[in-house]
């Protein structure tokens, strides 16, 4: 299985610890990987797909064709990038008219969409290509943490264009978290949105934050050590969102960690090595807890 890692925007440009951690994990697991050089924004599904579908398809297909040239599947580490690239890939594979229109734009830059590769999400990829058992065998430091798993939306939905076990009660992500020694704590509204998607965070920040506060309240009641997600946009919404909410007098203090970072911790790397201390909110208590 050869893959090219699609970085997107938020991972390299806001939460580089996730980029670092992902590289560590892919290397450690012996996966044949390289970064997708010269990639752009996926482009973000909420805003750009809303504006103009032909533009959204053209930019997404350019990213996909870079990986087609390398004969590698695209690996995404963000639900938004996965949503855009997987949906665009499927649409272009299944609709010859859209493919023709998109290829006419791509011809301006000497590229052509062939439809020869797939787009993967790191959770689905690790679960089906590596497997829970093998990951269990690889870890060197089991993590005794109580975790609120947050799937986010576009890893699983729309189910019409995803290979998913269940939209309402999935287990793949929980199994991967528990493989590292953690306990995945159930909580009300676990499958709900973080609030950021669809361009809501960028234009209507207070609405997004109200959704986030509701979800954080449920997680707080569950009593966990941290939130684990697999999307830097959810990561940002929960992390930077807690800073905004603290400014309004609502303190939660729940560290937010991407699955790549959690996996790297279980492989023996320190919290600082994978940038957990570079979150917007103060995670020093959590880093100390791990250091013990």
């Amino acid at each position, binding site marked *: 299985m050869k893959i090219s890692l699609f*970085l997107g*925007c938020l991972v*390299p*440009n*806001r939460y*580089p*610890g996730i*980029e*670092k951690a992902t590289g560590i994990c892919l290397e450690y697991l012996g996966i044949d990987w390289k*970064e997708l*050089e*010269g*990639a*752009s*924004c996926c*482009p*973000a*599904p*909420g*805003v*750009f*797909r809303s*504006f*103009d*579908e*032909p*533009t959204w398809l*053209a*930019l997404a297909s*350019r990213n996909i064709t870079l990986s087609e040239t390398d004969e590698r599947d695209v690996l995404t580490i963000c639900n938004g990038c996965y949503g855009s690239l997987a949906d665009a890939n499927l649409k272009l594979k299944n609709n010859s008219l859209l493919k023709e*229109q998109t290829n006419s*734009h*791509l011809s*301006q*830059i000497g*590229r052509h969409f062939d439809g020869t590769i797939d787009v993967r999400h790191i959770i689905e990829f690790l679960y089906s290509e590596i497997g829970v058992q093998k990951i269990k065998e690889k870890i060197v430091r089991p993590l005794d943490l109580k975790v609120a798993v947050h799937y986010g*939306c576009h890893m699983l*939905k*729309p*189910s019409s264009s995803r290979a998913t076990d269940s*939209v309402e009660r999935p287990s793949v992500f929980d199994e991967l978290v528990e493989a590292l020694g953690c306990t995945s704590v159930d909580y009300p509204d676990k499958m*709900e*949105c973080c*609030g*950021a*998607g*669809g*361009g*809501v965070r*960028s*234009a*209507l920040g207070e*609405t997004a934050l*109200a*959704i986030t506060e*509701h979800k954080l309240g449920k997680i707080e009641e569950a009593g966990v050590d941290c939130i684990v997600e697999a999307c830097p946009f959810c990561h940002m919404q929960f992390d930077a969102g807690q800073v905004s909410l603290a400014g309004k007098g609502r303190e939660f203090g729940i560290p937010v960690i991407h699955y790549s970072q959690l996996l790297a911790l279980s492989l023996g790397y320190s919290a600082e*090595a*994978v*940038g957990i201390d*570079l979150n917007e909110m103060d995670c020093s208590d959590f880093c100390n807890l791990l250091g013990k």
Partner: protein
Amino acid sequence: MAGTPSIEEVIEDFNVLKCMQCGVCSGSCPSGRQASLNVRRLVRKIGKDHTAISDETLWMCTTCYNCQERCPRGIAIVDAILAVRSIAAHEGLILERHRHVANLLQEHGHAVPIDDTHREKRMQLGLNSLPSTVHSHPDALKDVKRLLASCGFGEITGGEEQ
């Protein structure tokens, strides 16, 4: 504009008129709990007349797809909302913050480009100060800009082409 559906096509393509106004969508909507978005009403507006295009709640949907997954009539609600948004955008109805994000994409190839604080964080982690994306490949950024121009994206969003 090529590629933009009419409201009649949206109604047809996404089965909007099958709606029986049961409200499962609104009951499943995380945004509706917190803000004035009422998906059931928005679907009716899309089916009935053109006012959904200028309805400000159109932009409160986080595209979580709960409503679409649960709709007992199989209406592709989120897909319909995205399509109506694109009609709105083509009529110039774009929120200022969204226009700003569109301009960032056109200038940098990233909706969220790097800044000095995060270059510093990258170097602290032992990564290159710029990622291997268009940020490190000026020719790739030129290609992105050429593609955006080919699609007429700047004319739609009212931003700069180059």
